[in-house]
């Protein structure tokens, strides 16, 4: 039903009509029931462009209510332009409280990062996903990759990781690092750095992944095992820095590098702005 408090009653609460929300919730329930499986859904055109978070926005719009508190981050930061834009969108169409605090958020929508502050039970993290299919760059055809998932035929992925080792002496994949969910489906964790992969494993929070352009939703329910692919003699490892954050001194967070003068002088700071600010 149109909500008179939103844009003069021209739009429904949280923008999507109730039938669409129901359709998306069904897809989410199926996704939760089959962790890591990509559920096709009737993605709608959103008033923000494809590739800018429409999948995440649709998932958030389908689950958000007035008593929620929303946090939106892009690259770990609350104040990057697209995060600001999406937060403004929900503040406007869902009349919802927003926050930059990871702890206070009931729903966190994210692009490219998992917050440094550990998530807890009852929280939901919504990932914006550009290409949901982890095998896509190895096999461009959807009809093929669907069959490969159905048969758990993942040799092609193992071979690609092996080739990387043969060529570079290590697995050179750095972000969107493939994971095995619940021992069944290989899943794209979205383009988060592999640094964040361990946070997905047995997380107490519910992880929802929305791909708007590709019209797929998938999920990792709380406490589900999520294993980053590797080999016994080349175990999975994450990035590390010799520097620490120039603002808060953190040595355990993901650091962004900045060029601060014409001579190319570098400076490192936390990518997670909430984490960094609380430590200062």
């Amino acid at each position, binding site marked *: 039903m149109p909500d008179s408090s939103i844009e003069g009653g021209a739009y429904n609460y949280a923008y999507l*009509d109730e039938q669409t929300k129901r359709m998306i919730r069904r897809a989410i329930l199926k996704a939760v029931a089959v962790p890591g499986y990509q559920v096709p*859904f*009737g993605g709608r055109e959103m008033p923000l462009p*494809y590739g800018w978070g429409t999948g995440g926005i649709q998932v958030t719009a389908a689950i958000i209510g007035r008593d929620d508190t929303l946090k939106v981050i892009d*690259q770990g930061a609350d104040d990057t332009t697209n995060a600001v834009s999406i937060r*403004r969108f929900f503040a406007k169409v869902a009349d919802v409280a927003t926050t930059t605090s990871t702890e206070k958020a009931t729903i966190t929508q994210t692009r490219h990062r998992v917050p440094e502050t550990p998530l807890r039970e009852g929280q939901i993290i919504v990932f914006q996903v550009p290409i949901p299919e982890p095998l896509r760059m190895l096999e*461009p055809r959807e009809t093929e990759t669907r069959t490969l998932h159905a048969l758990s035929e993942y040799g092609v992925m193992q071979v690609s990781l092996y080739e990387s080792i043969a060529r570079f002496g290590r697995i050179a994949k750095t972000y969107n690092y493939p994971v095995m969910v619940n021992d069944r489906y290989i899943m794209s964790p979205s*383009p988060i*750095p592999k640094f964040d992969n361990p946070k997905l494993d047995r997380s107490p929070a519910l992880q929802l992944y929305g791909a708007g352009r590709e019209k797929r939703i998938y999920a990792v329910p709380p406490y589900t095992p999520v294993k980053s692919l590797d080999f016994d003699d080349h175990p999975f490892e994450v990035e590390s820095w010799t520097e620490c954050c*120039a603002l808060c001194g953190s040595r355990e967070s993901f650091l962004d590098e900045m060029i601060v003068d014409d001579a190319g002088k570098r400076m490192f700071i936390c990518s997670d702005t909430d984490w960094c600010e609380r430590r200062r």
Partner: protein
Amino acid sequence: MYVAVKGGETAIAHSLDLIADKRRGDRAVAELSLEQIDQQLGLAVDRVMTEGSCYDRALAALAIKQARGDLVEAIFLLRAYRTTLPRFGDSVPLDTTSMIVERRISGTFKDIPGGQVLGPTYDYTHRLLDFSLAASGERPQAPTAPVDSAQALPRVGDILERDGLLEPPPQGSSEGEKAEDLTRQPLTLPASRPLRLQNLARGDEGFLLALGYSTQRGYGNNHPFVGEIRFGGVPVSFVPEELGFAIEIADIDVTECDMVNQFAGSHDVPPQFTRGYGLAFGHAERKAMAMALVDRALRAEELSESASSPAQDEEFVLAHSDNVEASGFVQHLKLPHYVDFQSELVTVRALRQEVEQRNRRAALDQAAE
């Protein structure tokens, strides 16, 4: 010292003001009205309605105005509005033989029942800039012949079909069956022909034009002829549940293209001509023809032809035809990618270091020999 990309909120607010200002341009120049866009940029309106999948001239004109004439942006605006509209049912299929044609031509026969009607077309204009348009001034009305609205015009294809020379129209959704709707459900592959045609109708004109062109240059050629192109108004009928019979609810302009293509025949079928179909809102012959070429190319598998060219590849064509999707994903590269890039930096540095060390060791070994 360090200046972070902060203050996004204020920056966005200012950016919105700036783009609104740019849109209006010099205030000394009169503002465009929606009626002017509708009447004088009518073909732009047609394209936005077609690819925006929404027949509403006023809304399309508004979108064009708001997008400053960027048609892909206007299509996006119209789509984002359309998606919020409630659906109250499916219309009765359009009957284009009842079209009141403004233009109707065939490339296959010199004369056809009902005749060839050249109508308004740029085809035979000489592309010389008409400087008289730079000045304002009224133009005389063009003379028109009286329209016989009672005359039904049979399709050229139907006449060929009667002799068995042309295949019957490929099976769509059958009568009474609810039409699938690409805007409500995800595309699954292989797609039915109705879904394929929906996808092509919404598809980017430039993309389809290039693909159609590629078939003519040998990438999946099937020797097309324009069986017929017709443009004009057709009534839209709808059966309300409470009435149980069809009532006319609108008249819309459409362009329809029936492409006739060669077919060598297969095991079970003797040689005959096959069809490719294109339909667009308003007057859009380039789009309707390109669509018909690609529709036919996509039927390769069904007709047991080898499918080795891009235009014959269903997944390739259907997954990349939508300009709203394509535009969004290409342009999302403008968004920050600091984090992924940082991960790549860390790895590339490490890899370079390893190579350097290896080279240094090799040089030392060589010096020692």
